[in-house]
């Protein structure tokens, strides 16, 4: 052994595969967005039509963005990328729950039909509606 690294064919194959995976990965912001796709809501047993009247009002208020990317950024906003990276769906649900709690604590509230909702949960409702309508 002379300290050099000998790359076998197998190593080269692995390395090539890794480069391919990295190249195929979306940018990190996009990765965050992907975490909030349809799979995120898979355990939410709610008929989207039930929430539609309230979502219309949230949209009508102009306080919450209406495009998917902005909604997702709004839900995850402020969180260090490193923390989001690798979160399981379950952990992300818990992250959102805690963010809603912080919204109430810190007064980040939106009013919908008189109901006091957290800004994050209003984003979540609109996103759910948007994704469900696809």
């Amino acid at each position, binding site marked *: 052994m002379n300290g050099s690294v000998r790359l076998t064919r197998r190593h080269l194959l692995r390395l090539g595969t890794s480069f391919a995976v990295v190249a195929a990965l979306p940018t990190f912001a996009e990765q965050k967005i992907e975490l909030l796709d349809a799979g995120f*809501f898979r*355990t*939410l*047993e*709610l008929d989207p039509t*039930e*929430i539609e*009247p*309230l979502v219309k009002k949230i949209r009508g208020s102009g306080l919450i963005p209406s495009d998917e990317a902005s909604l997702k950024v709004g839900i995850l906003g402020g969180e260090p990328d490193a923390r989001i990276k690798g979160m399981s769906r379950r952990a992300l*649900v*818990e992250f*959102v*729950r805690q963010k*809603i*709690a912080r*919204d*109430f*604590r810190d*007064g980040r*509230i939106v*009013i919908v*039909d*008189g*109901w*006091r*909702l*957290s800004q994050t*949960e209003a984003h*979540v*409702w609109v996103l759910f509606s948007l994704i469900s309508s696809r």
Partner: protein
Amino acid sequence: MLIEHNSIEPDSEFEVDLCIIGAGACGITIARTFDNLNLKVALLESGGFEYSEKNHALYSGEASGVSDDYLTRTRQRMFGGTTNHWGGLCRPFDEIDFEKRAWVPNSVAWPFTRSTLEPYYDKAADIVQLKRFFADGPASRDLVDAQCQLSALLFRFSPPTRFGTEYRKELIDSQNISVFLESNATELSLNEHRSAARVLNVMASDGGTFRIKAQNFVLATGGLENPRFLLNSNAEISAGLGNHSDLVGRYFMSHAPSGGLGAVALAGPETKTITDRLFNPRFSYIGIKAETQRKLGLLNHGIALWRSRTEELPEDLKRFAKINERFSSFYGAGETSDAFHVVSVAEQSPNRDSRVSLLAEKDYTGMRKLRLDFKTNTIDRQSVAQSFEFLAAELGRLGHGRVRFDFESAEALPFDPDDHHMGTTRMHEDPKLGVVNEHCRVHGIRNLYVTGGSVFPSGGFANPTITMIAMALRLADHLKSLS
């Protein structure tokens, strides 16, 4: 014993140890504690055992800021007083209600803390046929746990005790208590030094007059009539008795009960805990803990969750509750939920211009009628709105539910006074700040006492009757200690 007013010789004079003017909850309570003692007691009541329009009409006057019939609808001028129509809702005032609060305009501390009244609250509970508050457990507890800044504030329901019927026989059978019905106290005159009350002038409903001399007098005619009587008794002191600092009649306060202010959709694992603490086995209001009231500069406030037993919840509320439940479940909190309308009872802060004064017009007894000007402070409505905001934030923060507001702004909130009349002869050790001292004795008059809600420097949010009775029992102890 009962003294029939039409059997009294014109211009008779009675001499007793204690003369109690007014046979409502407080007057009857004090009188009963003197039963079988070697002291003569006169208990005067303007009305009779039954309602009479003629007697009730003596309540008429003028009012602003309240409904037209407020002066007559909210009181009962008959034996037993307003307990003849009270709902029986009882809860001791909270400790913070006894404190001076820097953020409340015109706030003064009570001369003692709640602990002074606690033994009397338990005795008062016996009188209104309730389990005791303090001997049988705390009157407040956490709504959920210590980290939640909301409390479950226990109320108890008296049957309700109608003092005029419940305690009538006992008083009539008493050998040392004389009950005078249809007897209107019209003026109290002082001795030559103006330092003591000397003789009470009385006019019966048939126009006959008589007098009562007493060692001590207790005025127990309610939060509107107490100041009216003191202001009318102005033969020796033109401003009226106890009005040395222009405080008699001022700082009139009530409570503001309001329905239709919003809704609450509970969800999550604590839903049952919350509903159990509010409804089982007894009824509680949601309150905001004292430390948060201090931090946010709030008045005291009770929020009741309410749902009709017979009517379904409105569709929009049901729909929201379902959405809220599903999201709560989504976040891992389980599928339990409940929804309610909200009823609110708000404390009113003291306002110097909220007051009872006298009209020039007199009633048939020769007493000037009263005028009530009901006024609020900006904080009264603001505090209700802020309390709702805090409720929404706290339930939201802890994942217990969501709150709907059915009002646009604090300014739009109703603040209609309840049948509770307080503050008009406020209690303070300093004669510049109070009409009566810590023993409810009128400053400067050594034998005239006032009892009832009129002596409360602040009114909290809880119904006042049990506190009035506790205070009356305390006064009775003081009077006995003098003899």
